[in-house]
């Protein structure tokens, strides 16, 4: 099937879309096929990224949808950074699918898999597209599948979390749409590259207002401090495979969009510094708030908001090392937090509380080991991937000379160590009656892949160095982006 037509970045979106539409039909034929189709789609998308990503490292692939040149039509910009994110998302999607084969029992399974596939496809679309309105549409796709997935489980307070998410989410989309309207009213175009070129048409005061709107709009999805009220509820209400995807994918896509828009359209000095400060504030507040959490998923939710804050702080440095460090932090966070969510669900089921972990070391030794590995990786202890990502963030901050930031990041790491080790310590308590149950092999396999990722990056951080530098280059080099897109 793959050779039937030339591979291009649009397959990232078209294949899952086709599968999503096919799934209701397929569900009528045979129940078991519901589980197989998403796997095939994710495999196909992984195959696409395996073929395309190396090409993207040399030169960004720019694809025009429906054959129209960029200012008229929509174009997909598949540079090293977009490639990195797209491959990461598809890999995470595949692992979560593998995991939820056996762990996800909630009934309307065909609907669950449709929403899951579209969550991943929407986020990949956000990363690929080069048109600002198209970015809005893909943000909506990701958001609407996220709303429905948050309220997927039947227990009582899930709908409440869903409503909070949709309330704040539609505020975000209204503000983004308003921002697009203002931009269009001044510049008259919608293509990102075209916009970047004639941003001078927009007077400075209006540019600040539009930056504010976009910051709030994308900030809500990227969980920046004052805007992330919905996040803890959404993470703890959604089924664990979905929360893993939230932490790994939706946040990263929104963060990428925010970064791309800010660097292209609003490069004035204050914007990135402001983002960096917001990131730090998010880091400090969510790490401290996580200290008192009894529900494990809520604790992981706060911790992932903190890690995203760290990535934002690094991104805000606006230097090549800063973006390099932000990318590294994002990848590490996606892998480790994904593993933690899935491990906790496998260990303690839906309502995992801190006391539920007591003495789990004896009953489920493999899972406890994985949890300990994840906890050490998140804190950033040496032999694991977290250490290198935190170190690159700190050196990036060191280079730009703000030592206070380094002190804050290190202080919050101690707080992070406090609540993660409290949980890890409980695993090895002698008393306590933890939940029984054998974890099926496919779930363990999914976790093992993530653990292998952590260890691989931990021992060979150089291996992903090249992709990260290319990605950082790609994001910062706006001239190459605009000239590449509008070359004809």
């Amino acid at each position, binding site marked *: 099937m793959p050779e039937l*037509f030339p591979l*291009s970045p649009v397959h990232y979106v078209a294949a899952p*879309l086709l599968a999503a539409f096919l799934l209701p039909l397929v569900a009528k034929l045979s129940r078991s096929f519901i589980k197989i189709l998403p796997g095939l789609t994710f495999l196909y998308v992984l195959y696409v990224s395996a073929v395309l990503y190396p090409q993207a490292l040399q030169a960004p692939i720019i694809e025009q*949808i*429906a054959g*129209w040149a960029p200012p008229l039509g929509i174009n997909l910009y598949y540079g090293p950074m977009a490639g990195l994110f797209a491959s990461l998302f598809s890999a995470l999607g595949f692992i979560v699918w593998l995991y939820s084969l056996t762990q996800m029992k909630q009934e309307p399974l065909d609907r669950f898999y449709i929403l899951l596939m579209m969550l991943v496809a929407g986020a990949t679309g956000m990363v690929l*597209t080069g048109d600002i309105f198209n970015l809005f549409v893909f943000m909506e796709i990701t958001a609407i599948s996220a709303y429905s997935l948050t309220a997927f489980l039947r227990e009582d307070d899930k709908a409440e979390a869903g409503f909070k998410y949709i309330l704040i989410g539609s505020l975000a989309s209204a503000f983004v749409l308003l921002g697009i309207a203002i931009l269009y009213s001044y510049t*008259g175009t919608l293509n990102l590259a075209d916009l970047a070129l004639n941003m001078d048409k927009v007077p400075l005061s*209006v540019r600040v*207002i539009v930056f504010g709107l976009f910051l709030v709009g994308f900030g809500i999805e990227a969980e920046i401090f004052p805007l992330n009220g919905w996040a803890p509820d959404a993470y703890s209400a959604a089924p664990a495979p979905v929360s893993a995807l939230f932490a790994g994918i939706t946040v990263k896509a929104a963060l990428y969009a925010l970064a791309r828009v800010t660097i292209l359209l609003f490069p004035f000095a204050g914007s990135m510094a402001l983002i960096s400060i917001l990131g730090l504030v998010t880091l400090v507040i969510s790490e401290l708030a996580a200290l008192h959490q009894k529900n494990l998923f809520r604790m992981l939710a706060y911790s992932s908001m903190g890690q995203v804050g760290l990535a934002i702080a690094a991104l805000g440095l606006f230097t090549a090392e800063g973006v390099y460090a932000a990318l590294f932090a994002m990848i590490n966070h996606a892998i480790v937090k994904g593993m933690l969510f899935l491990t906790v669900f496998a260990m303690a089921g839906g309502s995992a509380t801190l006391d539920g972990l007591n003495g789990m070391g004896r009953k489920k030794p493999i899972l406890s080991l994985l949890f300990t590995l994840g906890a050490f990786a998140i804190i950033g202890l040496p032999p694991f991937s977290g250490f290198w990502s935190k170190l690159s963030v700190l050196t990036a901050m060191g280079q730009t000379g703000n030592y206070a930031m380094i002190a804050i990041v290190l202080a919050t790491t101690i707080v992070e160590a406090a609540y993660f080790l409290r949980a890890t310590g409980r695993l090895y308590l002698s008393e306590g009656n933890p939940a029984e149950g054998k974890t099926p092999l496919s779930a363990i396999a999914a976790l093992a892949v993530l653990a292998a990722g952590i260890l691989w990056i931990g021992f060979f951080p150089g291996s992903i160095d090249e992709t990260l530098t290319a990605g950082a280059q790609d994001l910062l080099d706006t001239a190459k982006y605009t000239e590449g897109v509008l070359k004809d």
Partner: protein
Amino acid sequence: MKKLLAAFLLGFIGYYLYTAFAGVPFGENKMEVGKDYLETTVPKTGAVNTVTSIVVNYRGFDTLGEVTVLFLAATGLGAILFGMKGKPEDKHREPSSILTTGAKALFPIIVLLGAYIFIHGHLTPGGGFQGGTIIATGVLILILGIKSFHANHALLSVMESLAGITFVVAGILGLAFGKNFLENILPLGTPGQVLSAGIIPIIYIAVGFKVGAELAGVLDTLMSTTRGEE
């Protein structure tokens, strides 16, 4: 007090938005991309209605995304209200006879109107979305009018999926013919005719069916959820 603070804040935001739009002269021709669309729509895409050509051809990817959003809303709705299937009779009170006969009489006309709109999408104003919604309102009248009426969910979801697949396949065909995704591969025909403008009518008819089936499904799911008392 809260109301006062809210009013003040909104006044503040309103002022800033107003200053943002102060610089935009109302009614002046400041089209950049719009001009190119208007000039190239008839020769390049063959569609007379520029809005439809933009929606389906130039920015077809948006509409693909758009259809997915609607599809996800229908699936999401079904997933959220999954456990709340109610008994048929608690749908609503006994409809009056006027409503029933009116519904029976009106339904075919509404469907005809809807079909006309999405078939002539590229000629007259309107298109897939508008036509589909009109058909859905037709089904709504049936649901309200006839007590025992139940939308056949199986048929609706099959129609929905087939329409969606035709849309995506139309896009993939563009790739198969060596062009780009969603590019027009059929002859443009003479503008103004029904069979003109390449794949635009086909896509819009597919969208029409899809939207019609989806919204009918959504309405029926919503109608048949339990009152919440039990």
